[in-house]
């Protein structure tokens, strides 16, 4: 059995200098913007400081609602699940198509206020190994509440773009350990990664591991407590 290597990450936000004030400008900029910017506005948002609750799963939808006041496009952009796309180019095309569709059906050009433009940014992610290793899933019961939010982001959010199956690292590891963890994997799959803060996600995951595996001592490979 391969140990789970706990990694951590920190995010730097880099401004691209590109801005949009209308839906058309958003679409035009999306055509050529650095792919890291699309990553940032879907995933990076979770790791950056913010006071707001996440009403939508990406910044494009949030801006269309809050600054353009166009709920229709906001709702359509919000149902795009980035995990459905094998690469960022596919995600870029989907964004452009959804926006084009909206542009075709609207006759009025909506403008954001000058100080509410969409600012395209990109992320610089620094990933580092904590050199902590998890030998048995039950160890997560104790370890998860103490993980940094950077580790939660790396293993639960960022992982989805690293696997063709778009799963998180926890499920990818558990599947290797056998069917006794199927119930836990199914429960983890139910956690929506986009709407809660990383602090809340950490608490949810810790709760699931505790519910399914009990205390760490009883959750070795020889005495799993599947199903919880």
């Amino acid at each position, binding site marked *: 059995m391969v140990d789970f290597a706990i990694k951590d990450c*920190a995010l*730097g936000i880099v401004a691209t200098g590109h801005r949009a004030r209308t839906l058309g400008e958003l679409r035009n900029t999306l055509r050529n913007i650095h792919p890291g910017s699309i990553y940032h506005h879907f995933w990076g948002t979770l790791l950056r*400081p913010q*006071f*707001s609750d996440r009403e939508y799963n990406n910044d494009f939808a949030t801006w269309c609602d809050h600054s353009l006041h166009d709920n229709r496009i906001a709702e359509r952009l919000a149902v795009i699940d980035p995990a459905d796309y094998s690469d960022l180019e596919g995600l870029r095309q989907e964004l452009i198509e959804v926006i084009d569709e909206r542009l075709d059906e609207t006759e009025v050009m909506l403008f954001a206020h000058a100080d509410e433009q969409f*600012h395209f940014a990109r992320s610089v*992610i*620094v990933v580092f190994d*904590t050199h902590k290793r998890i030998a048995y899933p039950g160890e997560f019961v104790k370890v998860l509440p*103490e993980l940094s939010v950077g580790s939660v982001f790396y293993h639960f959010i960022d992982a989805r773009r690293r696997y063709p199956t778009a799963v998180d690292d926890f499920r990818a590891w558990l599947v290797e350990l056998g069917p006794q963890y199927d119930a836990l994997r199914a429960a983890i799959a139910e956690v929506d990664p986009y709407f809660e803060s990383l602090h809340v996600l950490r608490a949810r995951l810790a709760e699931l591991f505790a519910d399914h595996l009990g205390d760490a001592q009883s959750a070795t490979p020889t005495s799993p407590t599947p199903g919880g």
Partner: protein
Amino acid sequence: MSDPVPVSLLDRYAEHAGPEVIEQLRQLAGQLAGLKVVHVNSTRQGGGVAEILETLVPLMQELGLDVSWEVIEGNDDFFACTKSFHNALQGKALRIPDALLRTYETVNARNADRLRPILEAADFVFVHDPQPAPLLGHCAGRRGKWIWRCHIDVSHPHRPVWKYLRKFVADYDASIFSLEAFAQPMPHPVFIIPPSIDPLSRKNQPLTESEVLKVLEEFSIDPRRPMILQVSRFDQFKDPLGVIQAYQLATQFVPSLQLVLAGGTAVDDPEGDVVLQQVREAAEGDPDIHVLSSGHYTDGTISALQTAADIVLQKSLREGFGLTVTEAMWKGKPVIGGNTGGIRLQLMNHRTGFLVDTPEGAAMRIRYLLADRPRIKQIGQNAHELVRQSFLNTRHLREYLTLLVALLYGAEDRIELE
């Protein structure tokens, strides 16, 4: 009996931010151990930049970086010029006389002569705000990366002044702005790092009830009556006169209301006295308006006032970030803030406070909150937790370290370290 084991500064921060946050800092800093970092600004005391550096520098030192903090020296003309820069970068159309610009350049050349050895030997140099920006041009033998850190709202700069300053900062290796909206196009990577507060500073530490009451008594503020507070420099962009107007409107419905305006002036802000005089004139004749200038209070006093306030205002017309908003939220207070700059990032209507555009709007929110005390408490709790998660200086430090690693490894999208 053995001596007690000293508690490290990082351990003390762990009590507020969480041990996992500190562990992450240690691991990130491990990649930068021993590197020489120099911060340069224009004042050791007064203003948000000095406050941030007071804590970031020792924290970086404890994490194993070789960090120093240098302050440039200037004369009255120099600070008059840089204050004009500040106003112009925040959008005020003004012309700065050539003589003052020459002073600005000469003072920087003189400071460069003094600081050159340490700056040229550094692996990283953080130059804060426009005051020391020309130093880079005087350090031809520099071997490290230079970062220009802009703490000012430059979303709508007065273009002639920005054009003049841009030539000094364009050659840096990176720049940092507090918000995306502030970022200006540069020929180098532009990072976005919001500022932070220090939970261990005297003004952010919890106080006892008797400590708070003592301060209220000192300034003849009645603890049994509602009190609203604005803490900020006496600066036209902080709109202290608008706050007085909002208070006067609100007192028509809440006659017992008291207003406290507590503001300091920094060494590099020669306009402060002028605005303070205007405030005193507007407050004249109303014993329930308490104007406290820097000669009257300490950080402990400010903390006591924030703790005692029912509502905190920050009715700025322009604002870099608005650290006083963050401080008030840390103390569990709802904040009514101007709809501008970083305040917009921090305040969500009904959740952490209210954004307003006019004195009338501020007056309306004051009335609304004072009529609903449970709401005040609930908003305050939300505000405190959100600051804990995202706006303590441990987060700020993490982002500085991330930037340094990024510059060290080439600022690629993804840097995988062992």
